């Protein structure tokens, strides 16, 4: 009988102690990120949409060698190059990136011998059409969409 009441007492104490923990949490700072209302803070290393990098003069680094397109496990890149008159090397004429297939694995980024394709922390894209996920990364369009705010 005594043991029974002792158990009851110990149980009640453990429950009260647990409630004390939650009570303390009530007065501690809020840790929840208010996501849709406030943009989530992402690390600059976050792997979002790809973009083509430029050198100091604003030239695209990409030489349209096609290595990234061949090594991509999800076959989401297609590159076509052209050699402008007077230029010493090829430049990409179209660089199409199908973000709906991309697994953000980084094979293209680490594999590019020129560091010409890089990740950006841009991640949100919503559309009702599949074509909206085919991104043209070449000049004028290399930052194809704005972050969700």
């Amino acid at each position: 009988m005594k043991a029974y009441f002792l158990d009851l007492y110990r149980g009640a104490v453990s429950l009260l102690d647990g409630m004390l923990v939650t009570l303390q949490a009530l007065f501690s700072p809020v840790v929840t990120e208010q996501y849709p209302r406030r943009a989530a803070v992402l690390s600059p290393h976050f792997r979002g949409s790809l973009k083509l990098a430029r050198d100091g003069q604003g030239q695209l680094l990409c030489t349209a060698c096609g290595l990234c397109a061949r090594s991509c496990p999800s076959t989401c890149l297609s590159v076509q190059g052209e050699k402008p008159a007077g230029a010493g090397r090829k430049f990409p004429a179209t660089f199409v990136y199908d973000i709906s297939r991309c697994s953000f694995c980084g094979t293209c980024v680490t594999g590019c011998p020129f560091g010409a394709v890089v990740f950006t922390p841009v991640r949100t894209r919503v559309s009702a059409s599949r074509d909206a996920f085919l991104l043209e990364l070449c000049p004028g369009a290399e930052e194809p969409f704005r972050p969700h705010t």
Partner: protein
Amino acid sequence: MTISAAESPHYRMHLNLGPQHPSTHGVLHLELEMYGEYVLGIETVLGYGHRMHEKTAERRPWQAFFANTPRIDYACGLPHGHCYALLLEEALQIEVPERALSLRIVSSELNRIASHLLWVGAFLLDLGAFTPILYCFDDREQAVDILEHMTGSRLTHPYMCAGGVTGDIDEETVLKIRAFIRRMRSRFSIYERLVTNNVIFVMRTRGIGVITPELARAYGATGPVLRASGVACDIRTVAPYGGYGRYTFDVPLGASGDCLDRYRVRMAEIRQSLAIIEQALDRLPGGPVRAAVPRKIAPPPGEYSSSVEGARGHVTYWAVSDGSEIPYRLKIRSACMGNLSLLPELCRGMLLADLIATLGSLDLVIPEIDR
């Protein structure tokens, strides 16, 4: 409890649990044979999350499979990548830089902590306690933020690669990880008061789903499930890989193999993982994080295998190469299949609520079984 067949058929029923039930941790479908509230037998139906990972490997270059590895076990993906990297490094005789070894261990252990915290929260949710998952996610968020900075993503971390890791860490990240270790250590007392001492939690888990060491061995259970039954088997100490042999840490063991022990073992493993990370940071060597690897990977013909300790147990990769740039065959052995096969044995005569507790305590990621 004994049930005689002569008893009223009125109480016998066939119950489908899942595949979309919240407590089946993914897409597990259980067909239960019930007698009232008691479980007579169980049939597990798998295959809802099958994504053909092994077949995909046979169609792509060797290194392309790194993108798949974290997606096999999405709650603790880095050990899978680690395992595949070890396999390729063995096949190609690549020497991995010291710094990469340390970073692999730091990231894998952070991933293990995140996975265990996720499990604690989900397990208690199965038991009907909603509050603890909020504390677990608060802590897990810190680990995931660090992993996001290290690896570039929050869940399916594509961090491991043949010859090392894809990114280095700076001094600021080291400080962040140290702050996380301090914070996590101070949180154990909260978990103790909120969960471990809680009388309802203890009564719901003590003596429930007891797995004897013999049973665990017979069914090929691994990881915390096996260790909670008192069998000291952890690949990190039994067959150290990737530099784990240089770290000192304990392998937490349970005594009775019930749900409570499985909880205790995982909580103790979080402490040990923190100790491993701390040691790794204390002697973090400088230098490169990736060895030079040929652009075209084509291991010599032969069979290769590697094993690591994931958050759920043994992960083994076995590959056959025919000397080409594409694997001839890649076979993955993950822990959850062995752990799940214990369930039909354990469930007989259990109350339905205890079955949910036992199922939760096994820490299953069903798509890891389906692959």
